[in-house]
């Protein structure tokens, strides 16, 4: 069973229609997904996810990074997508930033893994 086949943890069947389309592997893909979507599509995702945010985070806080099951990974990545979509809906009413700078000109050089355990200060990376 592949990761995206794993769907979502119990209790989140209502969000499964966003899997796998809104489950992106990293921040680069999330930014591209936002920029290639219409604001109406982003709004539909946002409007469905937001009321479930408390419940989703309640579930996610029970799971340690580095030890996530595929359904929890999917749920986390939907929530990371919500973070990417939020400014488009809440601030701009547009996939682009205010005053229209072409976001495609951004290049990521370093990312934080979506799912790996993160070392504390003093621990080896």
């Amino acid at each position, binding site marked *: 069973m592949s990761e995206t086949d794993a769907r979502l943890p119990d209790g989140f069947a209502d969000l499964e229609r966003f899997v796998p389309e809104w489950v992106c592997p990293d921040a680069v893909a999330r930014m591209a997904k936002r920029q290639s979507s219409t604001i109406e599509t982003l709004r539909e995702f946002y409007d469905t996810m937001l009321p479930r945010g408390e419940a989703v985070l309640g579930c996610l806080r029970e799971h340690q*990074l580095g030890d996530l099951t595929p359904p*929890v990974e999917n749920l986390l990545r939907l929530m990371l997508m919500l973070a990417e979509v939020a400014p488009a809906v809440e601030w701009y009413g547009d996939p682009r*930033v*205010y005053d229209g*700078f072409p976001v495609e000109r951004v290049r990521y050089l370093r990312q934080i893994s979506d799912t790996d355990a993160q070392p504390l200060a003093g621990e080896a990376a």
Partner: protein
Amino acid sequence: MNEMAKPPVPDLGLTERYPDIGRGPVDTAIYHEPAVYAKELEAILRPSWYMIGRVEQIPRAGDFFTCDLPTFGYELLICRDRQGDVNGFHNVCTHRGNVAEHRPDGHSAGLFTCRFHGWSFDLEGNLKRIRDEEGFFGCDKKKMGLRRIATGVWQGFIFVCPAEEPPQSLEEWLGEQGADTADYPWGQCTQSYQWECEIACNWKLVNDSPAEVYHIPVLHPNSAAPTMMASGNPMGRLLDVRIRGNHRTNSHYSVAGEPKPVQKLAYFHAAAAQNVSGAARDYPPGINPTRSPFWTVDLIMFFPTLSFTLSAGMYTAHQVWPLGPNRSLYRQRVFVQPARTAAERFGQENTMVEFRDVVMEDFSTLERIQRALDSGQIREFHYHDHELALRHQHHVVTEILAAYDRDQAVA
């Protein structure tokens, strides 16, 4: 509590504290003239120190990373040797000039081997092996090690200076502002996102962008404005500007506004990674220097091209790499505390996206300003009292260039 409920409006009068800097309009020539840029390269940019990474990237002997200094076209190799020291080299094989190490990062068992002809260098940069050495005509291996670049570490940040002989040590360059900000828990934020974007404008315009908040209510109406100009500060004034030599710190006023819905989720479930703060804690004297309860963020500028937006639990490094009189490469690195749970990971993402988007709101304006400069349509800038940081930068650049001209005339 009453004091918190009715915050004072920040006063005017910042500029008059620094009478040497003046108060009149300034000439914009330094923002676009190619001849000025050529002088800046030698007088300002080459003698300065540049932050290129953190020690956590190379915790063990043999760990390395490679990077570039875009302004100078340099490729560098940074590694930790067996004594635990951080070494910086020009990443250029001394045979024919290919990079000595081609990987972006990793671990070396003790040798860096060029992928062109297989010459090998050790962790101290010594040339250890020449393939088929007998075919050369008396190469002196002792003199053919990797060329060193001046390297130093401050608070876990690795700095290099591209000058052959740096006129200032790293500590001297950091100066009083470095000493006054040293004890912030810089090393606690072990996770970072980094991105870059080329902007068609002069490097000083990129510095100017976050260095005044006069524009915040207008250019960032929905993102940054609601907290920074909340009750009592409709013009979005600063708490303070503190000048220390060529460096400076802006302290930002803020009253917690009503967060947007997704921010609210992030603040509640993943507070550690967020750019929100109450009053100053046990911070060193250079951070929130006025000890205001209405402080959120300091913009700590190390002239010429490095600044930190720093709050209680996270910080962002802004590095500008000048590429010409009207071209710059902006690199942003958002540093956050490590997340343990998947919920906290969401908080990190929220912070990264907010900082990326807010900063990008400025870029279209920067390119428009540059077009007006290049075409001669604006020849002077008029600075507001709370645009003091920009006036200070103009003053510092003008003074350094004047001294450089005097030195050149004598030489």
